[in-house]
């Protein structure tokens, strides 16, 4: 004896389904194509693939532009110009200007034409050249055209030379790298003790109520835009340092100020990840330690911190990675101009600071300046990527222990 209402409802549902079933002759249980479902699935997959294209984009862009930087010849300014107009066939050119004299055998370039210097007459201010080499086309040139000379940058020079002076064809990344590492070191000197201590206090000492207030306030630090930190470094920390150590000792732009503020910026990163690691340590370990008559400090330093060490180390590594990639603070407070110095109170330009300074001016594409940015960017990318992977590897080990 079936329920009347049920029968009626079955009718409604059956009608609704029939409408769908009428579209195909298949058995009612059989797969429908559901094209829409499949289309959506692939659309969503594409969304995810965008991230892969981003990485490919980064690697290809940095790699290819950096390759141009390392591929000879790169053209640098010779500080000389053509003094008189020449025809497409002339081989004796009058030149004027300063800088290192041209030498016989050197390759030079004017507009789109490349030439080989055959001989130089320094007294007359003329040179003899072989026109239109390397497949370029000879053309008449007007007076005042800039003469570029060929130079090349080797990876070895890039990584070992202590001079970065693009106009002189000297491209050693060490001054920039040195400033970056100095600032990161100062930053970690600030962030490690302060961040770890704050994490210990929040995790081991603070009452739940105090923690609920203090932690969000500390995290506010993480929300402050870096350009604001840069302003803070220049208008507060630098004057403070200058009044402490003397105006003659501390330059207006200096790595110490930038480093300290980068450190302050990183405190929340170190504190937050370290605290997570500390809190993940099982309560039973702490109780075991207290049960043996240890004080809270002894429990923290001898049991909890060692147990959470990999998470804490991961937070330090991540902090270093952020310090190295930090841009605005150093570009505002650390000074312009690559300088190879170990003086914390002197200005020095970091890798990121250099990229910002050069790209904020007028740069022309395909110039050596432009390509050099990507070579520096590639180095920066490799360093931070390695640090991030290392940090995650360390964290992964720490997860295995407790989960």
């Amino acid at each position, binding site marked *: 004896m079936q329920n009347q209402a049920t029968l009626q409802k079955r009718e409604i549902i059956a009608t609704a389904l029939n409408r769908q079933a009428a579209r195909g002759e298949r058995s009612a249980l059989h797969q429908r194509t559901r094209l829409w*479902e499949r289309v*959506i*699935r692939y659309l*969503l*997959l*594409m*969304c*995810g*693939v*965008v*991230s*892969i294209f*981003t990485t490919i*984009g980064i690697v290809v*862009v940095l790699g290819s*532009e950096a390759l141009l930087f390392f591929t000879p010849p790169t053209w640098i300014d010779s500080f000389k110009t053509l003094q008189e107009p020449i025809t497409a066939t002339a081989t004796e050119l009058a030149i004027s200007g300063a800088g290192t004299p041209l030498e016989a055998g050197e390759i030079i370039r004017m507009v789109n034409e490349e030439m080989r210097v055959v001989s130089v007459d320094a007294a007359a201010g003329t040179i003899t050249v072989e026109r239109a080499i390397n497949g370029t086309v000879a053309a008449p040139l007007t007076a005042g055209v800039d003469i570029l000379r060929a130079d090349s940058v080797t990876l070895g020079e890039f990584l070992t030379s202590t001079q970065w002076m693009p106009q002189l064809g000297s491209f050693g990344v060490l001054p920039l790298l040195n400033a970056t590492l100095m600032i990161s070191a100062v930053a970690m000197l600030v962030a490690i003790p*302060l961040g*770890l*201590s704050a994490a210990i*206090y929040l995790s081991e*000492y603070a009452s739940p109520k105090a923690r609920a207030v203090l932690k969000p*306030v*500390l995290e506010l*630090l993480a*929300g*402050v*835009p*870096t*350009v*604001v*930190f*840069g*302003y*803070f470094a220049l*208008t*507060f920390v630098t004057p403070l340092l200058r009044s402490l150590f003397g105006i003659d000792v501390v330059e207006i732009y200096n790595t110490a100020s930038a480093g300290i503020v980068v450190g302050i910026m990183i*405190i929340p990163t170190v504190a937050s990840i370290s605290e997570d690691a500390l809190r993940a340590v099982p309560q039973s370990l702490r109780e075991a330690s207290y049960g043996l008559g240890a*004080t*809270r*400090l002894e429990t923290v330093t001898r049991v909890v911190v060692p147990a959470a060490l990999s998470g804490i180390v991961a937070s330090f590594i991540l902090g270093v*990675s952020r310090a*190295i*990639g930090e*841009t605005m603070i150093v*570009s*505002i407070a650390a000074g312009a101009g690559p300088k190879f110095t170990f003086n914390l109170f002197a200005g020095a330009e970091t890798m*990121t600071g250099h*990229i*910002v300074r050069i*790209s*904020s001016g007028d740069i022309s*594409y395909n110039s050596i300046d432009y390509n050099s*940015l*990507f070579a520096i960017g590639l180095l*920066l*990318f490799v360093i*931070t990527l390695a*640090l*991030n*992977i290392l940090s995650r590897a360390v964290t992964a080990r720490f997860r295995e222990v407790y989960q």
Partner: protein
Amino acid sequence: MGEQVQDRQSFVPGDQAFQDDLRRRHRRAKRWQVFFFASLVVGLLALLALFANVADEAFGTIAIASKYSEAEVLAALSEARGVTVEGPLEALENDDLAQVLALYIPRRVPVIVRDELSRVKPEDFTRVPLREALAGATLPPDIADLTISQLSLEQQTAILSANLTHDVLYARVLNDVIGLDILKSWTLSRTLFDYAGIEAEFQALVAAQDPPNPQLKPHSWLNSTFVTGTQSSYPELAGIRTAILGTLWIMALTMLIAFPLGVGAAIYLEEYAHSGNWLERLIETNIRNLAGVPSIIYGLLGLAIFVRALAPISSGALFGFNEANGRTIFSAAMTMALLILPVIIIAAQEAIRAVPQSIRDASYGLGATQWQTIWYQVLPAALPGILTGTILSMSRAIGETAPLIVIGASAVIFVDPSGPFSKFTALPIQIWQWTARPQEEFRNLAAAAIIVLLALLLVLNSAAIILRQRVSNRLRG
């Protein structure tokens, strides 16, 4: 056995020694506890110092000088009009203000017309008829076929009066006629605690430089002119409207691109990707790695791809816009979108993961398809979490400066952005530029702009918190 016990006992200190040692241990524990707390406090103090420093610079006292006083200008205007014109200057009508410009700087009037109203290239401006040069402006019909040089000063002045807003005319009068000049500025703390010192410095300054019409007055660098005005090389008149609009444009466009992409990727990774194939694992690892890439690298990516390689698109040339290069809002938004994409994906993944499996089971159990389940059940339940994460990622993007500089945010922009293919400046860029200038007044402007930026962030973060609160209320039923 017995011997061992004997041995151990000899290591346990006597009662008195133990007590002393315990007291020492407790003292040490106490000292370190204070140190741990102090570290936390140092972090908070730094935050406090940062805010105080900004406020200190954003408000204070300034000493100003001007070429002409307001009274002088009003008197000259009254004389020209033949009637007494009442001040203050700010209350004057458009034609009076234009008249002031004509009286004091007649040669600059056509230049102002060009700067404010021209629709053609500067070199063509004096050559083409006004109909074309000032297309869209209100012009008397009889002069439309003439060029600007053929007009009388009165006609040029009339064009200004008819086509410029009161604010622009007033700013021009202040700028070009009165010639306001800030001699020096003092911080809020000095204004509050050492006003006598400021006055003494002011007197010395006046004595030494003898500036025209010197004046000492309290000043808030954060004011309505500042928020609504456009950029100016005079700090007193500089505003950040263009920068705010630039930031809003970039953010809106960034979200338009990054939100659907990010949520889409998160849905795929959480709801579809269970087979653990290489592509899915690659995407997952890749997103984690991208999240750690310094923002400046994204700037380089944007420079090479969006600004250069896609110049025809990013400059809008493909769509008939007339921008010279790809350094546009479009490029900035694309770059920012890639930058925050990993952040959005990770936040959305967490929100989707937090939706209980039982809801999915219930939906599948009723014969819903996978997409129906996601669209009708999973996404609505995860949406608040997704939105919170998105807003937080937005507040990160809003303060990002480096990538914008690298893709070439133009230095000085006077024109409000009008669409994705406009050139732009943005709040953080403005802060950076002002901070980098040596004059104290620009530091003050930077401080005021920082307050605006922080206020914007505060609004965003409050929105996120309120959203989270309402959700947890709703889920409790």
